[in-house]
Structure formats: structure tokens, C-alpha cells
């Protein structure tokens, strides 16, 4: 089931939530809508589900226009950010809800429903919790029940709104891997909304980066990370350092005669050395050292430049170098992306 989103616009009063958004989600893929809060990603997801109506534009499921069809008829599974489990029903009844509300002619028998629900509960590894109420479950368990409930109706499309947003770091990481494995098993076209770039890079087949109601870039995690289309994308996907400067003769030939340019270097692409390597090495002084578990963040002041630069290196490398705060060193960017000033956000 592929999803085609064509020229969607959505306005809330004076606020433009989505402006001319077009993107295609190939069948069977797990796609992340990634962006800062307020960028319109949740609105887009709700429009795909039919919970919100676009001002104009079309959503096609497998080439068929769904604009006129009711939420009920779209056969989507939706997992809400705060799960939205029916609080007065047991876990079993929650998962069975979508089957129980079907008209008599298409409703499976009690036994079939029971069998299906128990199968789904064991898929999400919560068969023992069938008789409990949502309030008796942990956040991660509720999330999995919400997923089982969405899957019970055999949706053509699975939509997840910030599925791991309200969970603590460890449960989050665990559920992330679990969702990836689950998707590899059932292969239903899935779209999930997230503001966490790490989550998007780890879980998805494809990332759609959004900002201010527009799509900045869509592509595989590698494409988006290795070849960011513009400053927003590189800024959003990881820590970067900015270097303002002029283009060298050689670059100017590529980019045209533009004077000011900003180059972006990711923190882990900055090399620290005691010796000057080549002409790109800059003299700098270490002003701060922060140890963040497996990595170490070193803040450096570049000689003759008011701006500070942050470099991230592995703990091993840091220990081998034996860096000290206040020490004079050389820094050298390993990989630089240049965007001309005009495009800067």
C-alpha cells in the first residue's frame, strides 16, 4: 500500500501548518516524518489518517483518492502519542474493540476474536496482561497495547504519532529496535512522527525532514545524513559547527560568484592534533572538556576567531591524546559542507 501525498495545504487561522507538501511513501516501507515541534508533521499524519482535513491537495492510497472517504473507511491503524487506550476497558477489550464494533455481517465470531486478540498480545509480548486495565500498565506496555489494538483491524497503513515520545531513554531504545523488528515481520506501510533525529536514523527506511510546514528533504537515512540538501537539514541531524568565510577560487567556480559562504562541520568530523597537519589546520585552545559516556566533547577557541568550536571524539582517542583544558592544539575539519549565505535559515 503506497501513500501519495499531493500538494497538501493546511491553515489553522493565521498559522500555516502545511504549505504545498508533496511526498510519496512507497509500499511496505517504514518512513519517519522528522522535524522540530510545530513543523506540521503531526498535522500531516492526522491528514493521512483522516482525523484532519486538508484545505486542498489529495492523499492517494495505492493510487486511489481517499479525500472523500471517512476515517472509518480508510483502514488505517493510528497509534496516538499518549496511547489513547480506552481507560474503562481491559487490555483484551481494548485490542478487541476494532473487531467488536464491526457490523454483524463482517464481525468475526467471539472465538475468532479471542484467538486473534491473544495472537496479537503475544506478538507484543503482553499475553499475561489481557485482564489488566491500562492504568495498571507501564508506559512501554501501554504503547505496545496501543500498537496491538491498531494492528487488530489489519490496517493497510500504520501511522504512529511520536510513538516513543513519552517514554524514558532505556525503554525508548528497546521499543525502537522492537518496532523495527516487528516491521520487518509484518511489512505494513508505516509512517511515524518524531523530533528525535537518532530515532529516525535508526529505525526508518526513509526520512522526510520537515520544517515550518514544508518538506526540506526526503530520502534514505544515508542520503539525508551524508548529503544534506540545505543548512536546516545538516543542523537538525546532529551537532554542527559553523565557519563563516569566503569561498576559495576553486569552490567559487562550482558555486558561482558568491562572496559569503557558511561551511558546516559536524562535531565528530573535527580532528584534534598537537602538530599542524596542513593548511587547513587551525590553531586553537581547549576551553572546556565534557565527558558524555562513550564520547568526550571538547570545546575549543580558535585563535583569531571569537566563535568556539565543539569537537566530539571517542573516549579512547581522548585518553590516547591526553588532552588537558587550556592546552594549545590544532584542529582540522575532516569533512566540510558549504552552503552559500543566501540559503541560510
Amino acid at each position, binding site marked *: 500500500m503506497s501513500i501519495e501525498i499531493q500538494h497538501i495545504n493546511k491553515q489553522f487561522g493565521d498559522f500555516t501548518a502545511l504549505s504545498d507538501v508533496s511526498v510519496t511513501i512507497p509500499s511496505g516501507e517504514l518512513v519517519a516524518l522528522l522535524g522540530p515541534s510545530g513543523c506540521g508533521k503531526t498535522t500531516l499524519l492526522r491528514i493521512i*489518517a*483522516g*482525523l484532519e482535513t486538508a484545505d486542498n491537495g489529495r492523499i492517494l492510497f495505492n493510487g486511489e483518492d481517499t479525500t472523500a472517504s471517512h*476515517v*472509518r473507511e480508510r*483502514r*488505517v*491503524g*493510528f497509534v*496516538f502519542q*499518549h496511547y*489513547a*487506550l*480506552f*481507560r*474503562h476497558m481491559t487490555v483484551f477489550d481494548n485490542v478487541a*474493540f*476494532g473487531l467488536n*464494533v*464491526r457490523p454483524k455481517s463482517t464481525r468475526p465470531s467471539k472465538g475468532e476474536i479471542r484467538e486473534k486478540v491473544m495472537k496479537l498480545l503475544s506478538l507484543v509480548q503482553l499475553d499475561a496482561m489481557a485482564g489488566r486495565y491500562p*492504568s495498571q500498565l507501564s508506559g512501554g506496555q501501554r504503547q505496545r497495547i496501543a500498537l496491538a*489494538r*491498531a494492528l*487488530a*483491524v489489519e490496517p493497510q497503513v500504520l501511522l504512529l504519532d511520536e510513538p516513543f515520545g513519552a517514554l524514558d531513554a532505556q525503554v525508548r531504545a528497546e521499543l525502537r529496535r522492537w518496532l523495527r523488528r516487528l516491521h520487518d515481520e509484518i511489512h505494513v506501510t508505516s509512517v511515524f512522527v518524531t523530533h528525535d533525529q537518532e530515532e529516525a536514523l535508526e529505525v526508518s527506511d526513509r526520512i522526510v525532514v520537515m520544517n515550518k510546514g514544508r518538506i526540506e528533504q526526503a530520502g534514505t537515512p544515508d542520503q539525508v545524513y551524508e548529503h544534506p540538501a540545505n543548512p536546516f537539514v545538516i543542523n537538525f541531524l546532529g551537532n554542527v559547527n559553523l565557519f563563516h568565510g569566503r569561498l576559495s577560487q576553486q569552490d567559487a567556480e562550482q558555486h558561482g560568484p558568491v562572496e559569503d559562504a557558511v561551511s558546516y562541520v559536524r562535531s565528530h568530523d573535527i580532528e584534534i592534533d598537537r602538530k599542524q597537519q596542513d593548511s587547513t589546520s587551525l590553531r586553537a585552545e581547549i576551553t572546556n572538556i565534557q565527558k558524555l559516556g562513550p564520547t568526550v566533547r571538547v570545546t575549543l577557541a580558535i585563535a583569531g576567531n571569537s566563535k568556539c568550536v565543539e569537537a566530539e571524539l571517542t573516549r579512547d582517542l581522548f585518553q590516547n591524546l591526553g588532552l588537558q583544558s587550556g592546552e594549545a592544539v590544532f584542529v582540522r575539519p575532516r569533512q566540510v559542507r558549504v552552503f552559500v549565505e543566501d540559503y541560510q535559515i
Partner: protein
Amino acid sequence: MSALNKKNSSNRSQTEPAFVRWLLIAIAMSFLTLFLALPLAAVFGQAFEKGLTVYLDAIREPDTLSSIKLTLITAAVTVPLNLFFGVTAAWAIAKFSFPGKNLLITLIDLPFSVSPVISGFIYVLIFGLQGWLGPWLQEHDIKIVFAVPGIILATLFVTFPFVARELIPLMEAQGKEEEEAALVLGATGLQTFFLVTLPNVKWGIIYGVILCNARAMGEFGAVSVVSGHIRGMTNTVPLHVEILYNEYNYSAAFAVASLLAFLALITLAVKSVAEWKVRQQFENN
């Protein structure tokens, strides 16, 4: 968070000295005793002053029985109607946005802000003999004012806000997500309402109904204007108490009044259970 608050409330460094606390509690308790408990005790004391037989005779008296019957009929008609109006209004206001929503909220509150006497007069003005519809009604031999329909209409107006007012904040606090989840799972609007919305506000409804019922049975002002005080026909219990009292028939007046007092006590008991359950529903969000 709540555990933290509980800890704080017993923390000596953040509370007043013991005598201040006891003084405040004592003032509040003596105020309650003076103005609430004592009058209530007086009602029962007066009612049973001449013994149980006099009490029972006063209640068994035909005019009293007919006033009890009328009060029960009024409540039996108005409470279900206002339950229906209240639930639909609250559902519309809390779960949908539409033009005129604020106007509707204001209108629902209107009976609270208008004196009951005026609400009674509205019906006399519309349906009374000198009123807008009076001549037409007389032609067709339909009696509204000074008859049971007028009493029911006035009570309906006065008790309109209770159910809606109770449900709107509760429904708004619970949000729309569960309803949206039900819709996505294929439920129809009615299924969503009966299977998801209604069970979540069950105790709020009971609370609203209890208050609505207490007011419907106890309403005096509006009903007094439209009733016409015809003994045995258009007298409700509160009106009957007044008549008996004005006839210096104290023990009968207090005997009938004690029925209303009983109703108040039962209401209070059910209300506190419902209140406790509603708070649970709020906290489960």
C-alpha cells in the same frame, strides 16, 4: 507529585502553629453547626415533636400525598429530559468546535444567573391568559400556567444547567483522543458515544443527575409563580410546606419539610460518592 504534596502538608516548617490551625477549624465547624446542622436538627425535632403517629398522619393526609405525587412526577419528567439535553450539549461543546459555541455555553448558564421568580414569570408571560400564547391556548382548551405542564416547564428551565455544567469540564479534561481512536478503529459515531464517551463520564452524569433531581424536587420560586397553589392539584412538596406553615399547622409543615430534608441527606451521601469517583476519572487522564 501528589506524594510530594502530601509530604509537604505535614511538614512543620511550612505550616502554621497548632493553635492557629485549631482555631480555624473550630471557627469553620461552629459556623457549620450554627447555620446548617442546627436548623436541620430543628426540622426533625419539630416534625417528631408530637410523636410518630401525628407525623405519619400529617404525611398520609390526601393533600400531602398529592403534593408528593406531583413532585415525583415533575422530577420524573424533568430529570430524564435534562439528562438528555445536558449530555448532548456537553458532548457537542467538549468534543466539537462550531460557530456559536460560546453563546451556547452562556445560554446554558442563564438559569443560574436569573432569579427563579423571573424564570417562573417568563412562562406566565408566554402562556398566561394575558400572555402571548394565552388566547390561542384557551381557544384550544390547553392549560399550561396554573397547571402541571407549567410546573414542569419552570422546573425544566431552572434545573437545565446541572448535568451539562458537571459534564463539560470533565469531558474537556478527557480530550478527544479516545474518541478519535475509536473512529480510526472503525466505530460509528453512536458506537463511539456509547462505548467510549459515556462510560468515561458515568460518575459525572450520576453527580449531575443527583443535583438536578434535588433541585427539581426542592424548587420553590419558579414553581410558586406558575403553580397557582391549588391544593391537591398544583401543589408540590415545597409549596405545600409553605401553605401548612402559613396555616400555623407547624408539626404538619415540619413533617412534610422533613421529607425534603431526608432527600437532602440522601443526595449528600450519593453526591460524595459520585464526587470521589469523578475525581478518580479526572486523575486517570
